[in-house]
């Protein structure tokens, strides 16, 4: 077999336990029970939080607009159920900030808003109409980054996108939501890619899938057959294979310039989940109000649940047989880039929640930092070619101008450096701090 496409650097987390995917990769997607009260924060994407357009006491239909996009880089939010608005108030978000949150009392009727209708078929719709649908459906990158999709689909006039890539790498350990989606709804994924391709006027569409999901590769390959210019490629199982620039290089050999966007090399990348949701929105008019969430780790029945936005983490975990043993950490997303939450009772499933991972004492990293021994492993694994140990040393001393000089801003925050560090240093964390500080310094200079 020929060498699989990949990128330089990277790590193999949890390889001995098959990237932790065994827990849930063979568990079919199941609809989660919809709770009686849903909490929908107005910040479910990168960019400006939405403005609530409903108030306490209002009745809402399912799929009705409840949060209006505030600016271009923002995505509207819709009601995941029909019912009554119980309250609109600021609540603690997992980011640690207070965010305007709409609390909806479910009437369990699932009455669909009368404005929601199928848009037609992809072939009948113009690129402009398709883009409009992506905006109206509140689409964001569902791999976890939650970047508003319509922004990605509006490349600058002087650029041309020749290739659309769908990210089916799912390189984060433990997560299997995309895997199950590709396996169970391959047509929807491919149709979404077809729509992206038409919208952008691209010649080619590629779905990249890591080698540890051969079954998904086979079914997607079959689903691609009816379409011209759409295909699937196997890529090496390695973290962070699903990082945008690394995926582009593995599939096309093109390197996105430092500080640049994929469109600079004629490429737009989206997640398989986003594509499937897009296809569904075109066919039925249904906006992004539910998603597949892998609930795994130290829970009794690891599952892939199709959950409505606004369902609490605790509710999701309870539906998976509850905690197995004592939880030490609960993570929204995967173990490498996910965010550890502090209260599963108030944190809810959002558009970007790819997983709910419960770590017990054995799985969680709670070891203390020790001195750097300069072994250079962090530099070897950094997919960007940074010297994490050097930036770390400058960052903890507050020398952020030096961090900038050592290209801290190019860090993709994949966490490979912290993962590999034998001294258990929090390298990625310190670089993240440096990035924030550098941005602030640049802003102040202006």
């Amino acid at each position, binding site marked *: 077999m020929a060498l699989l496409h990949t990128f330089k650097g990277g790590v193999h987390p949890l390889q001995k336990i098959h990237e932790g995917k065994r827990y849930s990769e063979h568990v079919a997607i199941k609809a989660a029970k919809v709770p009686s009260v849903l909490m929908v924060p107005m910040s479910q994407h990168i960019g400006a939080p939405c403005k609530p357009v409903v108030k306490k006491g209002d009745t809402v239909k399912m799929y009705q607009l409840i949060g209006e996009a505030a600016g271009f880089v923002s995505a509207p939010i819709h009601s995941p159920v029909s019912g009554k608005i119980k309250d609109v108030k600021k609540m603690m978000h997992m980011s640690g900030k207070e965010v305007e949150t709409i609390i909806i009392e479910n009437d369990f009727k699932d009455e669909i808003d009368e404005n929601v209708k199928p848009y037609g078929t992809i072939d009948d719709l113009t690129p402009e109409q398709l883009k409009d649908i992506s905006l109206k459906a509140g689409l964001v990158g569902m791999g976890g980054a939650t970047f508003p999709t319509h922004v990605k689909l509006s490349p600058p006039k002087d650029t041309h996108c020749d290739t659309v890539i769908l990210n089916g790498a799912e390189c984060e350990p433990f997560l299997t939501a995309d895997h199950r989606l590709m396996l169970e709804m391959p047509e929807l994924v491919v149709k979404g890619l077809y729509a992206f391709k038409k919208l952008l006027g691209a010649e080619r569409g590629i779905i990249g899938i890591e080698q540890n999901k051969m079954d998904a590769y086979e079914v997607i390959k079959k689903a691609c057959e009816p379409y011209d210019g759409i295909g699937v490629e196997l890529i090496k199982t390695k973290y962070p294979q699903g990082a945008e620039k690394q995926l582009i290089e593995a599939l096309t050999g093109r390197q996105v310039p430092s500080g640049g966007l994929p469109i600079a090399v004629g490429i737009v990348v989206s997640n398989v989940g986003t594509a499937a949701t897009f296809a569904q929105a075109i066919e039925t008019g249904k906006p992004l109000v539910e998603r597949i969430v892998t609930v795994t780790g130290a829970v009794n029945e690891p599952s892939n649940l199709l959950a409505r936005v606004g369902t609490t983490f605790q509710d999701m975990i309870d539906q998976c047989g509850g905690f197995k043993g004592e939880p030490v950490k609960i993570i929204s997303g995967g173990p490498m880039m996910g965010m550890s939450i502090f209260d599963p009772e108030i944190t809810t499933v959002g558009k970007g929640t790819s997983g709910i991972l419960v770590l017990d004492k054995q799985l969680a990293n709670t070891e203390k930092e020790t001195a750097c*021994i*300069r072994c250079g492993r962090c*530099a070897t694994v950094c997919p960007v070619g940074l*010297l994490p140990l050097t930036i770390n040393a400058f960052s903890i001393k507050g020398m952020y101008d030096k961090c900038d000089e050592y290209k801290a801003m190019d860090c993709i925050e994949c966490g490979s450096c912290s*993962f590999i560090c034998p001294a258990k240093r929090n390298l990625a964390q310190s670089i993240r701090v440096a990035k924030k500080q550098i941005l602030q310094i640049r802003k102040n200079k202006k």
Partner: protein
Amino acid sequence: MNLISTSSPHVRTNESVKVIMMDVLIALMPALIWAVYIFGINALLITVVSVLSAVICETAVEAFMKKPITTGDLSAVVTGILVAFNVSPAVPIWMPAIGSAFAILIVKQLFGGIGQNFMNPALGGRAFLLASWPVAMTTWVTTGTASAVSGATPLAIMKGGEAVGQLPSVWNMFIGNIGGCIGEVSALALLIGAAYLLYRGVITWRIPVSFIGTVVVLTLAFGQNPLNHIFAGGLMLGAFFMATDYSSSPITAKGQIIFGIGCGLLTAVIRVFGGYPEGVSYSILLMNVAAPLIDKFTKPRVYGEVAKSV
């Protein structure tokens, strides 16, 4: 529920500093066993005293400075063994203890402990001993086994001067049937250890290969037999176990190759033209000092960075 909330990533490799140091210790064992076989139990005694001195000094200085005690990471044990490996089996027993004390107290702890030493602690210790007791440090023994031919080291014989004798065969140099420092004589034993370190990913090929390769090319160019140069003396020990010290060698891939070439260049020049028969330790020490500078000038290209024309 008491949840921990930290920045990602939330999983870590099982590898630790202790595991790495343990690997180095394992890799040093073949050479130690050979040393005991050829020099007798005295070699082991010197090693034990050296290790004890290193560990005691590290514990004491950290306790004195009210810093966390880090002897558990085994790095002081490695330093102790390496100091012992760098002395003649004929030295008085207190000498390696002083060498280790210097290595730990002055070279390592005074500059901030593990990862902060600007030069290889064991080589610093050796240089200190060599400067303080030059005669004892260069008095070699007739080795313990009958097959050993001469007390003088092959490099000293090659250099001529006061040491006279017949140069041992390349085979005897390779397996270590020669005079020299405790840990340096058997290229074979050191290569077995080196292979283990490479397999475990503790070291990479860059420094040792560029180091040894440069010595081969240059000694050949200077009209000498390169085999004598790579199997005799401390080149194997230096290239695989000393020059690869994390703290005192460059981080970048390019920098490591430059570092290795620099070590090889200095070694060949000292051996062929210099006043000393051996140049491995001084060349590594000199390059140690240059390592931060090399790192500075070999910053790796960042992903997607457009190459600047120089």
